[in-house]
Every structure is written in C-alpha cells, then in structure tokens.
C-alpha cells in the first residue's frame, strides 16, 4: 500500500472512531458511558489533528482535554450521582424534534460543504514541527489574545474557587 493510501486508511479509521464514540456520547443512556465515549471522541480527534500535521495541538488536546477536562467531568459525574443508585439518569427529552432540527441542519451544512469552492492548496506542504511557528504567532501577531487568555484563565480559577467554597455567613 502506498504512503498516501495508508494515510487515507488511517483517516477513515480515526474518523469512524471519532464519529462512533461521539454517537455514544449523544445516545448513551448512562452518563458514565457517555463520559467514557467522550474520551474516545477526544482521542480520535487528536489522531485527526496529527493527520492534519498539527502535532502540538494534538498533544495539547490529549493533555488538556483527556487529562484535564475529562477527568473533571468524571469527577463531577461521580460527585453528583449516588452511584449505587440504579437510576443513574441521563434521560433525554424531545428526541423527535431534536432529530428534525438535526436533519435540517445537517442537510443544509452538508450541501454547503459540497457546494462551496474551497480555496485549497494544490500541493500540500510536508508536515513539519509546528511548535516554533505557533510560539512565534502567540508572542507576535496574537500577543493580545494570548495575554487576554491568561486573564480569562485567572478569572476562571478564581470563579471556580468562589463557586465551590462553603458559604460563610
């Protein structure tokens, strides 16, 4: 199998893994299963990022999403459910209208994707390490959003502490 053929096969594998586990998140009845399916989606997406030559973002995805956000989500699931309880609810409401909305949105966006004339490079550049370029962008062109991001993170930190501490009256 040629190199390109192998890359395509890997793409289809990762895309299938991502989509199937995303379906698991959406349709699973048990919230714990949903959380673990979310891990599959996040890892599949990280694989897709690698295929898209975004090595740094893929590592960030694994570190922050899988290592941070998902663990936090699982903690919240465990803390907010009596796990011993049989009815670990992940009940869904209004599936039929939601499916109708989804069908319409999917058709419109799918048609848009197919109809648009995307500006694409004819010859893809070889995948090179991106970390240095991202660093230059973050401290050059995007330095203001970068600084604002740190303020946002600080605000989130303080907000989380304020929200979860015991109220002293």
């Amino acid at each position, binding site marked *: 199998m040629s190199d390109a053929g192998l890359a395509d096969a890997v793409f289809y594998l990762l895309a299938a893994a991502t989509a199937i586990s995303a379906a698991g998140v959406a349709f699973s009845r048990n919230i714990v299963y949903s959380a673990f399916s979310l891990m599959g989606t996040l890892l599949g997406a990280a694989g897709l990022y690698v295929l898209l030559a975004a090595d740094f973002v893929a590592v960030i995805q694994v570190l922050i999403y899988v290592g941070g956000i998902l663990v936090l989500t699982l903690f919240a699931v465990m803390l907010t459910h009596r796990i011993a309880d049989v009815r670990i609810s992940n009940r869904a409401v209004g599936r039929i209208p939601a499916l109708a909305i989804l069908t319409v949105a999917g058709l419109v966006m799918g048609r848009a994707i197919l109809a648009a004339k995307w500006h694409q490079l004819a010859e893809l550049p070889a995948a090179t390490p991106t970390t240095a370029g991202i660093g230059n962008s*973050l401290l050059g062109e995007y330095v203001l959003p970068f600084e604002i991001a740190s303020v946002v993170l600080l605000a989130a930190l303080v907000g989380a502490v304020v929200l979860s501490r015991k109220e002293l009256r």
Partner: protein
Amino acid sequence: MPAVGLTHYLFVSLLVFLLGLFCVLTRRNAIGILMGVELILNAANINYLAFARFGSAPYDGQVFAIFVIMLAAAEATIGLAIVLGIYQTFHTIDVDAAETLRG
C-alpha cells in the same frame, strides 16, 4: 474512493457537531449538556485545523484551536463548579428541576 481532502474533514466535523447539538438539545442532565458542548467545540477545532492544513496560513488556525481548547478548559471548570453548586442546592442536576431563582 477519492483521496482524503478538505471536505472529508469537514464532514467528520459536521457529524461531530450534529451529535453534540443532539446532546445539548435532548439531555436533561447538566453534565450531559456540557459534554455536548465539548463535542461542538471539538468539531470547531477539527474545522480550524483542516482549514489550516489545506489553506495557505498554517499557524493561524492552530493558534485559534489552542485558544478554543483554553476556553473549553475555562468553561468546563466554571460549568462543573456551577453544576456542583446546583447539586448542593437542589440535590439533582436535571436542568428542568433547577428552575427557581432563589438561592
């Protein structure tokens, strides 16, 4: 089968987005809704990176993807803290049940 191009990635992203939207629309569980939001953010990220790969500005899309991941982390922290607060007050995290504004 045509070689994998931009549209393939866009369709994967569309699928993940739709499933996330379904999650947000149908879930009663607040954490389930947050998971749907994560799916939608990931779909956006796949789009960003696909356009970065197949376009001519490789780093802009990746920097935006990093900002999206950063905001997702902030959102998850605050969202889950709020969920825990709701749980302490109402002893459930069904968003239907938490409908009073009194603290």
